[in-house]
């Protein structure tokens, strides 16, 4: 009698082992690989460590962490379904970002628009590969090079793709220094790469800096109201920073809130990487299309930079077009590095920073416009 009871108890203890399948093991290995990238290689550690661990947790059989009542499901419902996490992250990003270089030369904002064209071209490719319209939107948004925007849009349009889209977005963002330079070199001539741009002067008044976030929010509300949560959050953070009167709130948004939400966001993204949903050919397709999206964004940014170079009589170095994406400030640094290779006297950093912050606004605006178009078409 006792022996039978002990055997039954032991059977319960080992139940996890008997339920473990090859897909679970594979996903746990993927989680470990993400941990290695974050810890061992220092690639986006703030995201890849919680995502990797979340992926391990969710693929442990019988733990039921993503079942109703499980703590990962509770976090998911609380922060992803409600879209609260990406919005809170945006407040922090706004509080960290200095839009000064963009305000000094507002025309550069156009590069932030061109840097989003890859989103829409990739959407067409995704449709061609058989993804549904809403899935295609979520895949295209990887090209925004903007994690929170990608998460926000995907959780709205295609929540079942959240894990793959988020991991692809953050992976490619970290690969910007490898992906962008060959495209920049290939699309510009020797003469264009050497163009010197005049030095950016710090000539923006405090009033302008304070009114800028209010203006952008109101403008977004008029053009693409469905994007106001994203843009409003970004601009609220920036208003707190620039006003200088709520330093504690700005600091808390940029540090404590951003850190806590990053942890919870990472865990919940990892929690969407369940074997039965993640291990599909479609996931591979998403990674391939994400790469194409960022490549196209860079190419379109540089080509638009060439157009601006032509229109201004050679005063704009087309290389800064590559910074029209949202990967801030990595992309601006890449532009500076590539530009410096060809002209040791040319310093493109501040101009590239302007284009890069323009890319941040551009990516949110592109997402806002997508949301509004889809809303207008009655698809959501």
């Amino acid at each position, binding site marked *: 009698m006792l022996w039978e009871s002990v055997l039954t108890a032991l059977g319960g203890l080992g139940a996890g082992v008997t339920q473990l399948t090859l897909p679970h093991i594979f996903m746990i290995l993927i989680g470990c690989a993400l941990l290695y990238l974050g810890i061992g290689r220092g690639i986006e550690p703030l995201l890849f460590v919680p995502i990797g661990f979340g992926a391990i947790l969710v693929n442990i059989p019988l733990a039921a962490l993503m079942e109703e009542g499980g703590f990962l499901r509770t976090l998911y419902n609380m922060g992803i379904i409600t879209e609260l996490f990406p919005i809170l992250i945006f407040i922090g990003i706004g509080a960290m970002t200095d839009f000064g270089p963009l305000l000094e030369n*507002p025309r550069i904002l*156009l590069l932030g628009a061109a840097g989003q064209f890859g989103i*829409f071209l990739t959407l067409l490719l995704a449709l061609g590969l058989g993804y549904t319209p809403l899935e295609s939107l979520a895949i295209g948004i990887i090209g925004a090079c903007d994690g929170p925007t990608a998460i926000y849009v995907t959780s709205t349009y295609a929540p079942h793709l959240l894990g793959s889209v988020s991991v692809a977005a953050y992976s490619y963002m970290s690969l910007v220094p490898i992906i962008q330079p060959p495209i920049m070199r290939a699309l510009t001539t020797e003469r264009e790469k050497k163009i010197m741009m005049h030095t950016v002067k710090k000539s923006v008044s405090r009033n302008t800096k304070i*009114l800028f976030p209010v*203006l952008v929010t109101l*403008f977004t509300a008029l053009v693409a109201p469905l994007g106001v949560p994203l843009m409003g959050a970004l601009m609220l953070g920036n208003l707190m920073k620039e006003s200088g009167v709520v330093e504690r709130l700005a600091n808390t948004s940029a540090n404590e809130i951003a850190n806590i939400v990053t942890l919870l966001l990472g865990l919940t993204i990892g929690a969407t990487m369940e074997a039965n949903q993640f291990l599909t050919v479609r996931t591979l397709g998403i990674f391939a299309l994400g790469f194409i999206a960022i490549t196209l964004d860079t190419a379109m940014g540089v080509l638009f930079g060439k157009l601006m170079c032509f229109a201004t009589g050679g005063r704009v170095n087309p290389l800064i077009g590559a910074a029209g994406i949202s990967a801030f400030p990595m992309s601006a640094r890449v532009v500076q590095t590539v530009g410096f290779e060809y002209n040791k006297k040319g310093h493109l950093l501040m101009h590239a920073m302007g284009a890069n912050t323009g890319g941040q606004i551009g990516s949110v605006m592109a997402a806002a416009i997508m949301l509004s178009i889809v809303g207008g078409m009655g698809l959501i």
Partner: protein
Amino acid sequence: MNDQWIFGLTMTIVGMGGTLLSLWLLSVLIGLLKKVFPYHKEHAHPKR
């Protein structure tokens, strides 16, 4: 042309055009804002 492609092309044309047009308008508005509130050196470093 099926609905899928009509959706894709509409999204591409309106999305790309809308993003470019919106950001151009925004850049014009920022320019105006700078004209209304120009930078003055004394504002940045008020005399005490």
